[in-house]
């Protein structure tokens, strides 16, 4: 074991990066070794993230449309014309794009709130001592562990207006008097939030559960002696102590939901109602059904910029100021 690892170590150490990057030689041996270990991961990131992003930005300033699909590099350079077009609310495309951005915000904020409430409730329940806790934990993780395509297709069946079980259940309980259109019309975005939250809340639950477990029991003892009841203990101990984990959860859920393609696409199909057209779905349908790659890329870059800006603002305000609040 030691022999193998030392052999790996020495063969990693033999890679001569310094020959190509002179600055690299100034790093300490340990840092050099660390960079060498990071190298495969960094190359992968370059290949599947960085190059497509740069490529996308490049295409967004070229007039790539149906005439240039196979020779995109011959497309004319159009400066910011694509951006002007997709952001102009007077055009149909622009209007729909702005509307899709609005729906995207509803989708991410709605999902964030719902997953957080569901995840926190589930985590608090799991944190209690009861028989069958482990079985409950496994059961609660299922929506996230099961392949999302399967889960989403089942939800899609259940939400059918005529044959779906949800409408018939609500009808028989007398909650509604007429079948509701869940997957067409204005309700669609809320159905999307509900279903996507269902697939995502176990992740929030597991992260918050880990956070809960790291809160020292003595804080609760001290608080109960100080006269705090259950609610006060949650309000003044649990919630503040979960702040670091919550900060990460909020950021991840916001960004991941914003760029989530699977849930809207599987649930709503290739012809989604307008209410369910979140930006990523709109961009996909617009770019690939109309062969408008230049304009599609411009919209993608806008979405990317919004996501990045939000992440940065979030880091700047939340992490800088309050992150140490719940630090242990």
């Amino acid at each position, binding site marked *: 074991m030691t022999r193998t690892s030392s052999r790996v170590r020495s063969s990693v150490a033999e890679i001569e990066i310094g020959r190509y990057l002179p600055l690299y030689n100034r790093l300490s041996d340990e840092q050099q070794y660390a960079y060498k270990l990071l190298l495969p991961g960094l190359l992968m990131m370059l290949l599947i993230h960085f190059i497509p992003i740069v490529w996308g930005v490049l295409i967004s300033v070229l007039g790539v449309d149906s005439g240039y699909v196979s020779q995109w590099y011959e497309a004319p350079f159009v400066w910011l014309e694509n951006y002007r077009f997709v952001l102009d609310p007077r055009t149909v495309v622009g209007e729909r794009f702005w509307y899709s951005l609005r729906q995207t915000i509803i989708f991410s904020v709605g999902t964030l709130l719902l997953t957080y409430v569901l995840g926190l409730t589930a985590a608090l329940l799991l944190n209690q001592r009861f028989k069958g806790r482990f079985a409950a934990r496994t059961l609660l993780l299922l929506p996230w562990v099961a392949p999302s395509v399967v889960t989403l297709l089942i939800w899609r069946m259940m939400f059918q207006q005529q044959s779906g079980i949800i409408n018939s259940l609500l009808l028989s309980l007398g909650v509604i008097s007429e079948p509701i259109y869940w997957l067409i019309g204005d309700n669609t975005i809320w159905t999307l939030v509900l279903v996507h939250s269902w697939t995502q809340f176990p992740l929030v639950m597991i992260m918050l559960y880990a956070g809960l477990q790291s809160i*020292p029991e*003595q*804080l609760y*003892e*001290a*608080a*109960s*002696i*100080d*006269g*705090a*009841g259950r609610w*006060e203990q949650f309000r*003044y*101990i649990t919630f*503040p*102590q979960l*702040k670091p984990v919550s900060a990460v959860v909020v950021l991840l859920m916001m960004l991941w939901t914003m760029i989530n393609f699977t849930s809207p696409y599987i649930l709503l199909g290739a012809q989604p109602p307008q209410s369910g057209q979140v930006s990523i779905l709109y961009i996909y349908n617009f770019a690939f059904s109309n062969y408008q790659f230049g304009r599609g890329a411009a919209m993608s870059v806008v979405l990317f910029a919004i996501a990045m800006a939000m992440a940065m603002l979030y880091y700047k305000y939340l992490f800088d100021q309050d992150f*140490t*609040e*719940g*630090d*242990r």
Partner: protein
Amino acid sequence: MSRVTIDELTKVYDSPSGSIEAVDDLTLAIDDGEFIVFVGPSGCGKSTTLRCIAGLETVTDGTIEFGAEDVTDQKPKERDIAMVFQNYALYPHMTARKNMAFGLKMSTDLSEDEIEDRVEETAQMMGIEELLADKPKALSGGQQQRVALGRAIVRDPAVFLMDEPLSNLDAKLRAQMRTELQQLQHDLDVTTVYVTHDQTEAMTMGDRIVVLNDGELQQVGTPLECYHRPANRFVAGFLGSPPMNFLPVEADLDAGALSHPRFSLSLSDSIMADLDGTELVMGIRPEHGSLTTTPDAHPEPERLVEATVTVTEPMGDVTNVYLDVGGESVTVTAGGHLGLTDGESVWLYVPEAKLHLFDAETGTAIKHSDEPIESTRVSEASRYAETA
């Protein structure tokens, strides 16, 4: 302020491997304003008892009363207590000020201003005004300790509960806080239950100490009472450092002596008359033994025990001498520097009056040393008399 009465308290924990009796039938009355120290080795039930008084553990059997009120089944917040934990348990996300104000905010109807005033007042008393705006992470161990104490004091509770509050401090700070705590308790005059495994803290701080072992009460008494009149062999061995020496002996009633394979120690008839069993354990405090290298010159040569020096530990003021007496180790604390060498033969003298005897089987004490256990403080009058 409140009198605490514990009556036949029993706490049993159920575990997969069977039930564990952490506290067994403990009965104890703690006077109003008294500083009582629970002491004993790990797992003796002292912390469990404290947690039962706090209401953090449910009681299996028995009752706990504060004054005339039965609090056995009350929640911690109903009991008007304050507690200091070993690792302080300060709320990490709150400033020292908020930590101290939290209990008042939760348990009283005081206005924000009144709470603020009381926090300031207590902080001044504890000398931590400067730290009020800091969070626990920014404070040193000693400062955290003060904030934790302040958090308890500001509540002005009926009973203070302290669970090894000084264990996480370094030796110097611990000694300093020990005296400070006693002073505070004296000034505040609040009934205090203090748990420690450190017998120095027990001896120096408590009005009375409660010695526990295996969940059972061993002895309750003033520190000197427990030290000089131990109820049994456990108490005798637990209090004191270096600990009391024990040697198994047999009472030879005909010869009027205690016999050991290596020596025979003759005793007065009055003592021998009280011995009924023959299997005994003899106990000697290290400071009560003395050593001589010239047995013939000793006034009581028949009471000398021959021994071999194994190790000497000069501490400066005293020297701990470790002796071998027939294969058993005996420690003697002698004043100053003796100039003994390892392997040297010496004679150990034990004054009869200082000897402890215990029943070998039950450990119950049969004879104590005659050291005075009343307060030996020089009275004001006699001090003036000396100077005059």
